[in-house]
């Protein structure tokens, strides 16, 4: 091997480039091994409108079900973040008609109690754990629902920071809970009602309102281009 080739990363998928057979919504297609499910859709000639969003694993638009060869277990994933393998069966998740409660987050009187009015199904969790198993973000969803019901809003808000709102926890719930929507309400309530106001922020807003920086602004905004460039260069 030539000297300069030492800095090349081996990629099995390039060395042994091979096509695999997958099933998309019940139809078989040959696609290159290891590409993402979304790319497999494009490769197999499908126009994608619904079912693709940020393509970076953050937006939850591409929630999909898949099953690998000979395994009875149907799993969930974000299609932009999952590589295809031989024998995989895939179906994109359709939009699910979950009920979202509407509320005025700031006007809530007693957010921990209001949870039961907004989402009366939340305490009916039967502990089946299907939501946790369905979460492509590895959130302990079931635990989150219980913590919400018991009023531990802080923990819920931390646990669900990874939630991309794909909604895959919802169709599996036998108690008709939409855990991601419950968690979103709880997280917002935690932020709006149970987190202390940062004292420094109001100070800064008041400083701006009172014109504390006006002299500095006047100086900067009347500088010539050259003076301004020189001034900027002094700020490290």
């Amino acid at each position, binding site marked *: 091997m030539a000297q*300069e080739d030492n*800095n*090349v*990363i*081996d*990629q099995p998928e*390039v*060395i042994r480039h091979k096509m695999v057979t997958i099933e998309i919504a019940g139809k078989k297609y040959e696609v290159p091994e*290891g*590409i*993402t499910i979304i790319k497999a859709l494009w*490769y*197999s*000639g*499908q126009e*994608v*409108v619904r079912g*693709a*969003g*940020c*393509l*970076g*694993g*953050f*937006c939850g*638009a591409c929630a999909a079900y898949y099953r690998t060869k000979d395994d009875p277990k149907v799993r969930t994933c974000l299609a932009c*973040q999952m*590589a295809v393998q031989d024998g995989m069966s895939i179906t994109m998740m359709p939009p699910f008609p979950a009920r*979202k409660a*509407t509320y005025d987050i*700031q006007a809530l009187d007693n957010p921990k109690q209001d949870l039961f009015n907004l989402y009366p199904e939340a305490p009916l969790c039967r502990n089946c754990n299907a939501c946790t198993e369905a979460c492509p973000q*590895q959130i302990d969803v079931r635990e989150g629902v219980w913590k919400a019901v018991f009023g531990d809003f802080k923990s819920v808000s931390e646990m669900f*920071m*990874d*939630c991309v*709102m794909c909604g895959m926890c919802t169709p599996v719930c036998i108690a008709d809970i939409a855990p991601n929507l419950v968690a*979103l309400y709880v997280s*917002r309530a*935690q*932020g*709006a009602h149970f987190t*202390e*106001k*940062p*004292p*420094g*922020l109001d*100070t*800064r*807003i008041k400083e*701006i309102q009172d014109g504390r*920086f006006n002299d500095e*602004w006047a100086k*900067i*905004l009347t500088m010539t281009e050259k003076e301004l*460039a020189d001034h*900027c*260069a002094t*700020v*490290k």
Partner: protein
Amino acid sequence: MDIHALQQIVHRTRDARRKQIIPKLPPAERDQLIHKYHPDYRASAYRPIRFGPNADDRTVVELATLLEGDSPIAGGFDLTPHYQTDVLVVGGGGAGCAAALHAHGAGAKVILATKLRLGDSNSVMAQGGMQISVAPEDSPVTHFVDTLKGGHMQNDHQLLKVMVEEGPSIAKWLLSLGVLFDRDGDGNLHVKKGGGSSKPRLLTCSDYTGLEIMRVLKDEVLNQKIQLLEFCSAVELTSNDEGNCTGAIFKDLDNHRHVVVAAKSVILATGGIGRLHIQGFPTSNHYGATGDGLCLAYRMGAKLMHIDTFQYHPSGAVYPEQLIGALVTEGIRSEGGHLVNAKGERFVNELDTRDVVSSSIIRECEEGRGIRTMSGRVGVWLDTPLLDAEQGPGTVEKHFPAMMLQFERFGIDISKDPVLIYPTLHYQNGGVKIDTNSETNVKNLFVAGEASGGLHGRNRLMGNSLLDLMVYGKRSGLTAASRAGAMKQGTLTLMHLQRFRTEAKMRGNLSGVTSPMILPSYTRKE
């Protein structure tokens, strides 16, 4: 070679590198580096635009072609509106949601139309944070100066002053809606230092800042029952006989019908252009980032600015193949992560501005100090395990859960092994020229967020985009709403399109493509 064998040099040189201090480049050297290596200076990628408000200005070929493209709407199109509203917001990302919420809050009737779902945007992916000068040792003036330096002194001063001064009140608004920014022990907002900034100023929600803000804003749009038109892509605007904007025509992507919306004001919040893959670059942008708003505004006669400059984020993933173009957040470098070439050397101050860091990575790779992949990519290492070494085990996992998970899916533990990165097309620095109310030179046509230009100069500073979205989303929404009461709905015509087509004929004809692009064509044909 096996990737782990190649990574050894990063592990071996880590301790020695920790003591090394690399100064930021002085202006002259910085300009020299950028001119030589930054993609903005690759002359062959550019050409002049042949007609329209920016005739003879240069931009990248991909964008020029779309700007000169023809509308899919024919002259005799039936403009009878299906909907009427005070304020029509086009785009469902950060700027669109902020505009819709503020316009609605001010009492206007609002319709928000978006090409994909509400919230599908680049905003949702913003990991690095949001620059707001809340720290006592910081000030809006320092924020202004840092941004100006980053933007090569080309930023519109008025737009920038407004943004930095309204920042703190935006933070307050978001907190009141329930956004969970990271805090210090004393309850104050935790600030991190970002590339190109002299003071720590980044507000964060771990590395999910954009996601957290967007979850909340989307929920609020739904709670406020703002009327939505999802999977409706704007394909043309309408004007009255004075040339003012009076509405828009959409294509419903589900049933392929056209939808006409009459509006007293239109706010374009259509985002950026990453999916044009300028100069063949991969992109960190979302599926719909095809610059639609630029084409629509241009045909209406709105002037664009700084459309020859784009941001190539220094750290796009190069390996594994499935993550190509995906962003490795700048937060890693903010917390001390080193960039390391194939020889195990650092080669730039990692916290220099994005254009400098990107240019230096391209230099390393062009001069043979990059690491290549068998599929033909090249990159340099980002030493992520250094964070655990410096700040204790678990740091990467705690501070960058999104990034950990993203790589973990492909069997890579970024707290133990460095990641391979190369610049990725990230942001359109320029866009439609706006004033401090976010209005263009076309009356009642507003542009907010990435689609607008001027604020960021020729290089956007990290963390300024989220703030831009909130500030100018708000200003466009409030201004548009304030006009609605005293204003009658203007007539809907296509006179601007007639003018555009006439000019096209006189000045070298249309480019032969139909614009906007709506979605990139990744579907493999036979």
